[in-house]
């Protein structure tokens, strides 16, 4: 039988927050057996739409028809029980609980009053295995990096007997390998007849997996399209509401900047790291970063990229090795000390180590600048407003005002604020760990351009990203990590993607 109605249908949905019209009259239809991509710039209203469907927020207007009935979920839990399974943009599991508990929270197998921990542990392991993950499920969630947490959240969602699966940027911190795994699962679920809503800023992924695309812009519906009949550039133009030409221009500018970057001679050495390491975190490594150089760090998930960055910045104390800045040995390891020495570190996990939820956008941006200035030399309000306005413009941060609390911004815009925080502190060495995570295509190009510009002006940058193309685009030199060991270092001119891929995964090939 061919069904004639969508499994999930949203009609002219509207939602306002103080000062922001997040959604206005948006429609969305998801059919069984399709993957429906939801696209739009940061702050377009994608996550809000999802949260309205699952009852996290109450809608102002509109209706939601699910499985042929008008529904009005009062809580995400109710939606889940009725068969709408969701992975939210920010991993919203409980950090202190174990992985197994997180997977089964709210639905312990009903075997009387007693909880059968053994069977829970077993089935948690099973559901993770589907995603090719072998973890100790008794460990607390917080002991795993954000990418693994994301995978656990996905495993949890997939495990429900669902009719609709909603994934809000599930791949934002995953590597190619995990993405492929996820996609094979999505395809299987689709063939089983689930309706799947998929949000991402990666265009390749949209074209790889989705059947239809709904585009939002500034809370308004732009339209629904068949993926096959919507060329990539047109999609971008629809999302940004700009002409194709304009976007192509920024891309061209970026490309020429990349060209210049590739041909540039390196400046003097800024920092030299000798035999730096910490047991259980990363094996001792040597590294040298020159002034005005972008050094890319490539490697698989868990290869030790973030660990290297944390050690360098003094989040964790190294137990071996030395650092020389401007040829002078420096001693001391704390973020405060590193900032004083001219470093900055934009960490990958914006929720736990980036944003300070209750502070405003302005305060969040100013924090690092202020610590650099020192406690007693408070930056005048006027000066603050200037700096903040400058970065809101440069990174196109969509916020009703600089005095908005950062927690009310969309995920991508929060990320931009954190990037702005570190750019504003004007460090001599900036460590960027997945700085474009969750950021839309337009802003991504802007940030990459900024990185190149800053490096031209003499800033050294250590650039970590799981997107190889991005690393290739921006770095002068690339260091490769594998299993917590630095295994290679190469000049960007000399290599292409496949060469790095090989270095990253050598061991796998060898087996």
């Amino acid at each position, binding site marked *: 039988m061919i069904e004639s109605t969508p499994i999930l249908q949203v009609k002219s949905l509207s939602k306002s927050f103080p000062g922001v019209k997040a959604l206005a009259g948006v429609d969305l239809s998801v059919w069984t057996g399709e993957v429906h991509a939801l696209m739009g710039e940061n702050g377009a209203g994608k996550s809000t739409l999802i949260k309205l469907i699952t009852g996290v927020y109450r809608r102002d207007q509109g209706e939601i028809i699910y499985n042929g009935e008008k529904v009005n979920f009062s809580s995400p839990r109710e939606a889940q029980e009725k068969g709408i399974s969701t992975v939210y943009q920010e991993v919203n599991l409980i950090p202190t609980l174990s992985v197994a508990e997180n997977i089964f929270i709210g639905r312990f197998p009903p075997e009387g009053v007693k909880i059968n921990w053994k069977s829970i542990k077993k089935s948690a392991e099973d559901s993770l295995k589907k995603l090719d993950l072998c973890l100790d499920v008794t460990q607390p969630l917080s002991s795993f990096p954000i990418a693994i947490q994301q995978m656990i959240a996905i495993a949890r969602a997939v495990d429900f007997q669902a009719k609709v699966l909603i994934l809000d940027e599930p791949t934002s911190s995953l590597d190619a390998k995990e993405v492929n795994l996820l996609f094979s699962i999505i395809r299987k679920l689709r063939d089983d007849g689930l309706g799947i809503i998929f949000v991402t800023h990666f265009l390749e992924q949209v074209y790889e997996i989705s059947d239809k695309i709904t585009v939002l812009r500034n809370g308004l519906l732009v339209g629904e399209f068949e993926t096959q009949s919507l060329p990539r550039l047109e999609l971008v133009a629809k999302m940004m509401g700009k002409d194709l030409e304009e976007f192509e221009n920024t891309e061209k500018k970026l490309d020429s900047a990349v060209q210049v970057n590739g041909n540039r001679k390196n400046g003097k050495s800024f920092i030299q790291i000798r035999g730096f390491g910490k047991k259980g975190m990363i094996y001792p490594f040597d590294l040298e970063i020159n002034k005005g150089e972008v050094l890319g760090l490539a490697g698989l998930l868990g290869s030790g990229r973030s660990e290297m960055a944390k050690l360098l910045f003094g989040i964790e104390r190294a137990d071996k090795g030395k650092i020389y800045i401007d040829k002078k040995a420096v001693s001391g390891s704390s973020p405060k000390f590193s*900032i004083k020495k001219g470093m900055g570190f934009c*960490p990958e996990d914006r929720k736990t180590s*980036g*944003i300070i939820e*209750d502070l405003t956008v302005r305060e969040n941006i*100013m924090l690092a600048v202020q*610590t650099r200035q020192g406690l007693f030399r*408070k930056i005048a309000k006027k000066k603050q407003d200037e700096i903040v306005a400058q970065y809101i413009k440069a990174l196109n941060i969509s916020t009703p005002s600089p005095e908005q609390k950062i927690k009310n911004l969309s995920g991508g815009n929060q990320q931009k604020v954190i990037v702005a925080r570190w750019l504003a502190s004007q460090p001599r060495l900036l460590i960027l760990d997945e700085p474009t995570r969750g950021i839309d295509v337009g802003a991504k190009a802007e940030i990459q351009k900024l990185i190149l510009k800053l490096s031209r002006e003499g800033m050294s940058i250590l650039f970590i990203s799981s997107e190889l193309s991005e690393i290739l685009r921006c770095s002068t030199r690339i260091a490769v990590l594998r299993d917590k060991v630095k295994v290679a270092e190469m000049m960007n001119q000399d290599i292409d993607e496949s060469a790095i891929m090989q270095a990253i995964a050598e061991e796998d090939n060898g087996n």
Partner: protein
Amino acid sequence: MAIKDLTRDLTKRIASSHIKWSLIIFFVILLFNFIFTPNFFHIEIKNGRFYGSIIDVFNRAAPVMLAAIGMTLVIATGGIDISVGSVMAISGSIAAVLIAKMDVPFWMVLCLPLVFSALLGAWNGLLVSYIGIQPIIATLILLVAGRGIAQLVTDGQIIVFEHPPFEFIAGGSLFGLHFPIIISFGVFLIILFLFKFTALGLFVESVGGNSEASKYCGINAGRIKLVVYIVSALCAGIAGLIAASNIKAADPNTSGDGLELNAILAVVIGGTSLNGGKYFLVGSVIGALIMQSLTTTILTMGVPVQVTLVVNAIVVLVVCLIQSKNFRDILAGIFKLDFRGLLRRMPLKGGNK
């Protein structure tokens, strides 16, 4: 013109700020008194000094206000300091002993208790930030031990003294105002500006909001916490001097009893969340005034002694409910629903479906 703009700006800012509910509640209490308590707002000048019920509220609120100011900062970092009552007793006891039993210059009578209070605050801060003990437990130690210390200081006795310069602290006046009012508002202004005109305030809120992220920003959370516990203990120490001066004696057992609870309530009523993060010093001051005006009102209304605490608790509950956004939403929901139901039942509107 300019003044008009200024007032409009001010009203707008208050309307959108967190302290508006505490302000409203304070005015409701004042209004209640205006209607039901005769002469509540009557102010007279005796010996060049203002007297009256309303002045009395400000005067008596001083110790709680002081403790609430320090408490606000501690709570903003995500902590709590339940040792303030004991610190207050210790400070008063030291001052009394210095006056009654030792021959030391007056400035030392003022300074030594405060220095010792600051040390106690540093002790709390060290336990919390460097040893990593939960704030409520860390300060519980001093809450219990502090009374013992105060008794040791006074040898277990109530020490009575006469010392006009010291009595000025509670009994004197400046610009026609009781001296405790001057002290509490002076401390309030100093703290307000110290935390606003340096980055201390921002760092406190940042540590309380997300201490992990603050660490990445290069903020030394331990040191910030140390500072706020010291400030809190100092405020309590000053309150101790006022109390001792007021009764011309030091009572190690009852001085500052329950101060921590009143201070915490004042902070919460003032709009600062116990979760830490954003803080509202002005709100806490109003909170302390609400607490005191409530007590004064209940006393002047002649409510039977045995029910005063109950009345007090009920009002505090109502105040906290009004502060809660959830509760206001529920209330709004109830009224809206009824309103809609009413509309639906109206025959005139029958055809709208």
